[in-house]
C-alpha cells in the first residue's frame, strides 16, 4: 500500500469530522504536484476524497460540495499528470492546475474570440487543456504530455 492511501484515508476521516481533526498539508502544486497536493486540493475544495490504485497509476476521486467530480491521476512515481472535472458548476481550476495555472491563463487569453466561449482547446508541448462550458454542464481534462505513463491513453481517462 502506497503512503498516499494512508493520507487519503486520513483525509476522509478528517473530512467526515468536518475538519475538526484536519492536519494541514502543504498547499503544493497539483497538476504536476505530488500526492500531498491531492489532499490539499480536496481540502480547498471542501470535498470528499477517495483513492483508487489502478494498474498504471493511482486515481484520486474528489467530489466537491457542489457535486462536481474531479479526478486526479498520479504516476507511480508520485506526480499528478492529469486532472479531469465534470459537473453542473466548474471546480477551482487555479487550485487544480497549481503551478500550471498561469500558463493556462495566458494560453486561454490568447485564444479569446467573439461569441459564446463554449469550448477551449489548448495543445501546448507541456500542457494540454480541453474544456467545455455550458450552463449546468462544465467539463474538462488537463494533462502534462511528457508525464503520461507509457501505455496510458488520455482519451480513456474518466
Amino acid at each position: 500500500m502506497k503512503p498516499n492511501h494512508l493520507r487519503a484515508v486520513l483525509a476522509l476521516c478528517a473530512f467526515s469530522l468536518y475538519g475538526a481533526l484536519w492536519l494541514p498539508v502543504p498547499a503544493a502544486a497539483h497538476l504536476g504536484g505530488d500526492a500531498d497536493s491531492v489532499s490539499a486540493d480536496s481540502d480547498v475544495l471542501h470535498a470528499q476524497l477517495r483513492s483508487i490504485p489502478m494498474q498504471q497509476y493511482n486515481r484520486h476521486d474528489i467530489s466537491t460540495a457542489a457535486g462536481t467530480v474531479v479526478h486526479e491521476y498520479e504516476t507511480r512515481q508520485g506526480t499528478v499528470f492529469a486532472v479531469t472535472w465534470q459537473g453542473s458548476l466548474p471546480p477551482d481550476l487555479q487550485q487544480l492546475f497549481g503551478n500550471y495555472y498561469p500558463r493556462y491563463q495566458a494560453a486561454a487569453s490568447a485564444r479569446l474570440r467573439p461569441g459564446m466561449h463554449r469550448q477551449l482547446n489548448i495543445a501546448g508541448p507541456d500542457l494540454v487543456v480541453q474544456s467545455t462550458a455550458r450552463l449546468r454542464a462544465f467539463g474538462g481534462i488537463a494533462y502534462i504530455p511528457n508525464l503520461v505513463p507509457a501505455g496510458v491513453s488520455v482519451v480513456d481517462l474518466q
Partner: protein
Amino acid sequence: MSHRCRWTLWLGLCMLAGCGGGSSSGGSASSSSSSSSGAAVSNVVTLTVGAGPAAAMGGTFNIPYASVKLCKPGTTTCATIDNVLVDTGSVGLRIMASALRSAGLTLTDMADPNNSSNSIAECLPFADGYTWGPVATADVSIGGELASNLSLNIIDDNSSYAATAPSSCTSILSSSANSLNSVSAFAANGVLGVGIFDQDCGNSCANCASFMPNGCNTAMSDLYYSCNSATNSCAFTPVVLTAQVRNPVALFATDNNGVIVELPALPAAGQSGASGTLVFGIGTQSNNGLGSATVLTTNSAGNFTTLYKGQMLSSSFIDSGSNGLFFPDSSITVCTSTTSSPNANEFFCPNATQMLTATNQGQNGATSVVKFDITSLNSLSNSFYASASIGGPAATSAALGSYFDWGLPFFYGRPVFTAIEGKPAGSATGPYYAY
C-alpha cells in the same frame, strides 16, 4: 483572416434589411419609443445575422442578433438595446452596462432578501473566462411579448457596479482569470438566452445550505454572490429559483413554452448577412405549430445523441450561439493559426467541400438524418457574415464526453424549435429540440 472592411459593408446591408429605418443604427443602444413589430404577429421579433455592434471590430460571423426593450419595472422609462446575441444554448438576458448607459437607462440592482444593504451579483464562467455584474429586474419586451419583473444580469463592462469581481470569480469559479466583460468579447451588446431551462443555474445555486451545516461559504461553487458596495465585498449566496436570472420566454403571459429560430437557406458560398425571425411559443398560435418537425427530447442537461462516422456523441446539442458546427473528425484539415488569426485552428479548412451525414437521436428514440457540408473558413469572403458550411473540431474523451455542437449553420433553411423544460409544447413536453 482580416475583416477590416466589414463594418462599412454592414452599414449598407443594414439599410437594405430595413433595420435602421433611415436612422443611424450604429450598434450602440438608443432609446426608442416605437415598436418594431408593426402589424406583424406579436410573438415574432426580427433576427439579423450581420456584423454586430461597432465595438465588435469585425472578425465575427454567424451571430444572430435581435433588439430587446427594457423598462424600469412598472414604468414607461425604457430603452431599446439592439445587437443582442440570440442564444438557444444559454438561459437569461444579459446586457452590457455600457449599452444601458448609452441608452440612458439605469436599472436598480436586486437587493439581497437576506441582507437589505447588499445586492445580488453573478459570476458566469465560460470556457475561457468569466463575466461579472449585478442582477437587476426590468420589464422586458421582445417583439410584442412582455416579461414583467424579469431577473436579468448586467455585465459590468464599464465598472459602474461598485462591487468588483471577487477572487473567487476571477480565479476560482471561472475557468480562467480572463474577463469577458466587454462588447467585443461577445461581439454583442448582450445575450438573450432562450434555451431549454427556466433558470440559468437552477437547484445548484438555490440550495447550497443543504450540504454545509453553517450555510453557504467559500467552499461552495456558486454563481451568485451577495455584495456590499460600501465595503466592496462579496460572498457566495443561494438565490431562490424565481429570483435567479431567468429565461424571459418562461415569464411571458402566453407563448411561454419555447421558441423557434427561423433563418433562410443560404447559397453555398455564404452571404453577406441573413434576416429571419425569432418566434415565441410552440403550438400556441397559427404561426408556431410543430407541423411535421422531428422532436428530439433531451436529457436533463439538454443533450441528445448524434451518430457520426461510427461515433456515438451522447452530449450533442443545438445552439444558435455557436458560430459553426463543432464535432470530432480528425480526417478534416484544420486551419492554420497565424498571428493575425490565432484562433483559426478552431475551424476546418478542407481543400474540397466535405459532404457529410449524421443522425440525431432523441431520448425519445426519434431519429433524424442530417446532411451538411463543411467548406474551408479561408473560402469565406471577408464581407460575408453568414455561412451554412463553417465547422471546426471538437475534442472528445472519456472525461470530456463527446458532442456534436449544431451551431448556427444548422439553422439556415430549417426552423428549429427549442422547448423549455417541464412545459408542454405541441405534441411533446420540453426539454426538447425539434426541426
